[in-house]
């Protein structure tokens, strides 16, 4: 049944474009506006040093000419650069992110031969009311591939085996979806046999993205208009999550028996996958490939780091202290380095599984970027409601040693007040755009209340009253390339519900994909205005800045504000980043 390509429904609707920039990006005009007035560009070579400080002279602006110097000779005239097509890319985009899918689209929904209004793909967006009624685990178990509601879902994820056996499905019971899996598998083998590895199919409003990992196929069907690279990255993470649970040695089962049914091996892990998929729309770590820290006074984080280092020296591979999904501190044994994606998947696994909250536990887990073939053993313990400690080891009988280590760590954390500080930081939140210092010469040195008691802006600001920061700044993300860490501002009131937050992250994600697009080469800056925001992105050797402004924001002030944000982050780096003994720097 599966191998005959002529049996595929509506093949004429399938086009297979290259995964390349989306249409509006390619057609976009590059309209360069130079900042005018007394902010004349000053050509200045950027430092190549690994320290962030060189780029952060007070008053230094983001400038077109300066960006050009990164790639070109230093004596390039500033005037020519500003008209040369580089520098700021300005993109106007009128069609919104959440374009509705046309009822005439004939993608996978049409494959079962349905027609008429019932087959129309409507917006069924589960993200809208996340905070209120999100239930862990798989929803809509009653659905199968013949039910209308199943076909209306906006974004599907599947894992299947190369013989077409379903392994995981985001919606519905994977066993009832066997017919659909077989169809997907047929598409894959059809294109594979043609000598072309199928990666991407567009069917009406739907994108179908495939990822082939040996005997395991991962598929995303989406009408969310996310870029191909973003969806592929999500499939990579889902695969990584599967490896974290099973290791890559699961491939051997398929060598022995190609028709091996793998789904029982993932029993009870639906919550893990659904929580990861949910993170794709709220957690920037899923596309930034960086982690984020809980803001803490430098000495507090140092105290936590010192005791973790102590246990790492006693034979623990990694010691990770986190509050929810934010890092308090982490250390690795010598030469061991922890990839931010592994941290994301590990944290997701721990946070999504209620089992870890009940008591201390000792479980095999695999860090796919560290070693996809082997299990490590994870001692996991919640020190309080939100703060969890994970100790990883290669030894399966180290439980009592790790328990010992935990008791030592806990004692030190309690004694040095770290846990209380962590709780306080959770309540205070991170950076608020409203607190962005107006005068960059008067630097705010600290965000922790104990150090700015006389000038605690965030404490005096009434909640939900602020309308964003200066120059219409609504939100920003700053990613330190050197540290593999990012810091993201709290959401300000113009972006105060989860649907808006999800839309903003999707916009960032798109920006990220276009800035890192291999085809058109890396970009240094981008300015983009659409119905919802002004988006600004600035990438240097040391950091990436993504900022969202009011759509009516003035461009020149927005650029100035970005400089101030960078300066601010720089001033606070001791508190918002984990510095020093980073395992990533080896």
């Amino acid at each position, binding site marked *: 049944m599966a191998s005959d390509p002529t049996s595929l429904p509506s093949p004429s609707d399938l086009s297979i474009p290259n995964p390349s920039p989306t249409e509006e990006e390619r057609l976009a005009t590059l309209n360069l506006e130079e900042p005018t007035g007394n902010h004349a560009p000053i050509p200045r070579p950027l430092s190549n040093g690994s320290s962030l400080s060189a780029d952060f002279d007070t008053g230094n602006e983001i400038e077109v000419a300066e960006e050009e110097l990164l790639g070109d000779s230093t004596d390039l005239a500033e005037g020519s650069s500003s008209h040369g097509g580089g520098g700021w890319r300005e993109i106007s985009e009128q069609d919104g992110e959440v374009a509705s899918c046309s009822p005439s689209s004939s993608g996978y929904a049409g494959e079962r031969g349905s027609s008429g209004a019932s087959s129309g793909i409507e917006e069924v967006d589960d993200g809208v009311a996340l905070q209120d009624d999100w239930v862990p685990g798989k929803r809509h178990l009653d659905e199968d591939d013949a039910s209308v509601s199943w076909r209306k879902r906006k974004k599907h994820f599947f894992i299947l085996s190369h013989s077409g056996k379903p392994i995981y499905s985001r919606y519905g019971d994977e066993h009832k979806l066997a017919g659909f899996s077989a169809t997907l598998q047929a598409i894959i083998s059809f294109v594979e046999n043609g000598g072309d590895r199928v990666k991407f199919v567009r069917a009406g409003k739907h994108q179908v993205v495939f990822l082939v990992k040996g005997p395991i196929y991962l598929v995303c069907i989406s009408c969310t208009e996310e870029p191909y690279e973003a969806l592929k990255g999500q499939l990579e993470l889902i695969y990584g999550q599967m490896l974290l649970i099973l290791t890559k040695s699961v491939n051997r089962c398929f060598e022995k028996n190609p028709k091996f049914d793998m789904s029982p091996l993932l*029993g*009870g892990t639906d919550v893990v996958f659904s929580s990861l998929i949910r993170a794709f729309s709220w957690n920037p770590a899923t596309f930034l490939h960086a982690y984020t820290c809980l803001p803490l006074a430098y000495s507090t984080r140092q105290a936590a780091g010192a005791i973790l280092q102590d246990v790492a020296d006693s034979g623990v591979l990694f010691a990770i202290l986190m509050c929810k999904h934010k890092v308090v501190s982490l250390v690795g044994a010598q030469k061991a380095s922890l990839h931010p994606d592994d941290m994301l998947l590990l944290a997701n696994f721990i946070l999504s*599984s209620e*089992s870890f909250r*009940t*008591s201390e536990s000792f*479980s095999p887990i695999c860090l796919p970027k560290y070693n996809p073939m082997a299990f490590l053993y*994870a001692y996991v313990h919640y020190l309080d409601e939100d703060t969890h400690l994970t100790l990883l080891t290669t030894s*399966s*009988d180290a439980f009592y040693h790790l328990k010992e280590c935990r008791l030592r760590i806990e004692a030190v954390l309690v004694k040095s007040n770290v846990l209380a500080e962590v709780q306080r930081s959770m309540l205070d939140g991170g950076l608020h755009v409203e607190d962005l210092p107006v005068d960059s010469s008067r630097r705010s040195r600290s965000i922790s209340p104990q150090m700015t008691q006389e000038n605690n802006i965030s404490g005096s600001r009434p909640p939900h009253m602020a309308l964003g920061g200066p120059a219409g700044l609504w939100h920003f993300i700053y990613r330190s390339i050197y540290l593999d860490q990012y810091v993201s501002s709290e959401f300000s009131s113009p972006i105060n519900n989860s649907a808006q937050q999800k839309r903003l992250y999707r916009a960032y994600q798109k920006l990220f994909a276009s800035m890192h697009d291999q085809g058109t080469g890396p970009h240094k800056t981008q300015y983009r205005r659409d119905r919802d925001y002004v988006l600004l992105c600035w990438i240097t050797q040391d950091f990436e800045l993504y900022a969202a402004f009011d759509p009516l924001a003035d461009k020149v002030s927005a650029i100035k504000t970005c400089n101030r944000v960078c300066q601010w982050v720089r001033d606070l780096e001791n508190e918002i980043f984990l510095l020093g003994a980073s395992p990533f720097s080896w």
Partner: protein
Amino acid sequence: MASIGNNSLNAKLVLLGDMGAGKSSLVLRFVKGQFLEFQESTIGAAFFSQTLAVNDATVKFEIWDTAGQERYHSLAPMYYRGAAAAIIVYDISSTESFERAKKWVQELQKQGNPNMVTALAGNKADLEDKRKVSTEEAQTYAQENGLFFMETSAKTATNVNEIFYEIARSMLFLGVLVSFTSTPATGLWCNGQSIWKCNRISHKSSKEELRTE
């Protein structure tokens, strides 16, 4: 050290059985006195400890609540290695879980500590109307294999404390019989000293003797 009654005993206890049989529910009922209608599937194994006073001795259980999910089966030895006691749990409303329990019994007989005190728990006894495994069948099986048997309900708390007490008593009773000249034990020790060496004693008879005390 002459009398075990003056001492405390540390004992590693492992729960094994099919996923969903109610291992975590039994432990949570025993340790925290709670029951959750929607108990999440265990990952790897969860560790608990609970001390019981039995007559004038105390038994400190170090409990490993293992995951019944298939992917963890091959890792089970990591948790039952060195255990002094095991509770093998099945769900009386599932013959499949009873078959799985028998497999665990076999595995422990082959791989486990030969002196392990092993109990068979037919859990979810409150689901009488859905019963698939008869009490007689399980009782007979337990006798043939030297296990002591109880039907339990984590939901109603029936026989939950009892099964742990029975295990504690059996271990103390066996401990009294044990010679102090033993080689290092695999999981039962007394004030840091090994007291565990004996030939296999029928748990059934030890239980009866304890009852007649």
